[in-house]
């Protein structure tokens, strides 16, 4: 019996040892474009002309006092257009912009060198990626999307704005905006020109695009939001669509800088 046990443990040990720890090679990186650089996009979240700071008091377009405790939104399908109209589309372009104490930003990689004159992106996630099965990367509900996914009603939350206001009966408000298809879809496309300015991407320079995101647009333009009558939106539907129409122009260009 003892001998058997010995043989057994020896064989088991052999078994353990023969298992390679890691036999998978990493996925090959896409071939980098020759003379490619990077482009930084920074989001300055504002309430009107004031920089957004959580828990600080602001006045909304209706004239009510409020504070913000959470502000997240999805920026997706970013593309930038060069002087000669050639376009760079960021692959797997899904980013959750989360407001913190520092201005949130993202970095476009592998951008062909050149002078860029405009940028396009979407607030939200395109319809197909909402319902085409388990996702990863910027759309992983256990990762980047952990606070931006409706598990009971398939789809991503495109924008979250939460805060407090004495105007609301409960003292709080929460807007979770989503809805990826049909009449009440809430993706909104942006096409922002740099005017006479150009963003010069090169191997040595990473230009910085600074965008301004104004919460007062969500709360008052064109539809005036009243925390008393609409303290929460938690579903896709007509209210979410109204808020999306409001945020359809909440992002504007602030500046372009060479670094």
């Amino acid at each position, binding site marked *: 019996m003892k001998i058997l046990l010995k043989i*057994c443990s020896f064989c088991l040990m052999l*078994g353990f040892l023969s298992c390679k720890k890691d036999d998978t090679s990493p996925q090959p990186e896409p071939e980098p474009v020759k003379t490619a650089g990077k482009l930084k996009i920074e989001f300055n979240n504002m309430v009107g002309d004031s920089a957004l700071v959580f828990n600080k008091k602001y006045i909304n377009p209706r004239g009510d006092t409020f504070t913000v405790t959470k502000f997240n939104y999805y920026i997706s399908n970013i593309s930038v257009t060069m002087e000669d109209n050639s376009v760079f589309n960021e692959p797997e372009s899904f980013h959750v912009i989360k407001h913190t104490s520092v201005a949130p930003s993202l970095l476009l990689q592998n951008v062909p060198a050149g002078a860029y004159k405009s940028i396009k992106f979407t607030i939200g996630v395109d319809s197909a990626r909402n319902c085409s*099965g*388990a996702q990863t990367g910027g759309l992983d509900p*256990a*990762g980047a999307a952990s606070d931006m996914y409706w*598990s009971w009603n398939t789809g991503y939350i495109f924008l979250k704005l939460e805060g407090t206001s004495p105007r609301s009966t409960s003292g709080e408000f929460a807007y979770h905006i989503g809805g990826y298809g049909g009449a009440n879809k809430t993706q909104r496309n942006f096409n922002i020109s740099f005017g006479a300015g150009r963003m010069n991407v090169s191997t040595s320079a990473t230009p910085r695009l600074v965008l301004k995101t104004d919460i007062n647009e969500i709360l008052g333009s064109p539809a005036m939001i009243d925390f008393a009558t609409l303290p929460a939106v938690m*579903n896709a539907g007509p209210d979410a669509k109204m808020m999306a129409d409001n945020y359809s122009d909440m992002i504007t260009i602030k500046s372009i800088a060479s670094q």
Partner: protein
Amino acid sequence: MNYKIKLFTFFILPVLTCCKVDPEITTPLPANDLVEVIPQGFPKPVYTFTGNPISENTFILGRFLFYEPMLSIDNTISCASCHQPHAAFAQSDHKVSHGINDAEGPRNSPAIFNMTWAPYFMHDGGITNIEQQPIAPIQNPIEMGENIVTVIEKLKASRKFRGLFKNAYGSEEIDSQKMFKAMAQFMALMYSYNSKYDHYKRNEKGGEMTEAELRGYSLFIAKCNSCHREPLFTDFTMRSNGLKLPANQAKIDSGRAHITQLPQDLYKFKTPSLRNIAVTWPYMHNGSLATLDECLEHYNSGIVNLTNLDPQLNSNGMQMTAQEKQDIIAFLNTLTDYQFIKDKRFANPNFN
């Protein structure tokens, strides 16, 4: 000789196969014949395993995940707690299922089979892809009450699951996409198409119907098939069947309207498949009807003229005789697929 075979089986074989199977998983698992199935007469499936290629090890991972209580916040509830093999992966004898801390949800556990044809999931159709289904009960506060972020952390900390993920995907790296694809693969391969009715339709042995069953079949075609359409026994539409609303206002379930926010969807629920109906009791979205006889009596005398009542129904009822009801039930009993509910490939892998 016998001794040598034993020695080989117990000591040598584990060594040879060790790189494929985690040492904690000691029992061999039946996972054979894993292929996409489109039975004769069935429509084109919606889910086609695109980006989720069928493999034995992915299926086995999905199977372990389906039976894993770690998916709930207090490690007590697995998918199989409310989706039991003997009940065609519904839960028998529970009007509504019990989640963590014995919390009662508002709805009856639906059965799981023939999922590749389903355009959406849940009684209200809120989930639109089978790979995106498991996160719903996991994060529902009264079902499994867990956060998927924590589930992934727990799985990463488990030697058993690191091994299972490695077997399935060639790497111990665990993420939600791999987890959900494996679970989807396990569930999507639950095909049910070998009931007595199926044998009858295919003129096979075991398909000999009695006169009562055949009478029931004719009645079924006349009275039920417009919604519970052959061969899936559902057309997947959202309808209100006039089920009496609960007296307790707080328990009224708005159904499809919960998802769409549209008044025209109030009290509508997905037409369930009637395959395996004999074993999925109790019935209706809230489990309020205990027997098939009660269900037929609902369509006879229980239909309430609710907002959005399906136009094919009215409060006068279907006016079936006792004999007719009995015959329909005889037919419905031919829809039980014992081969499916006893299929060991779908049983709990921890008690093999």
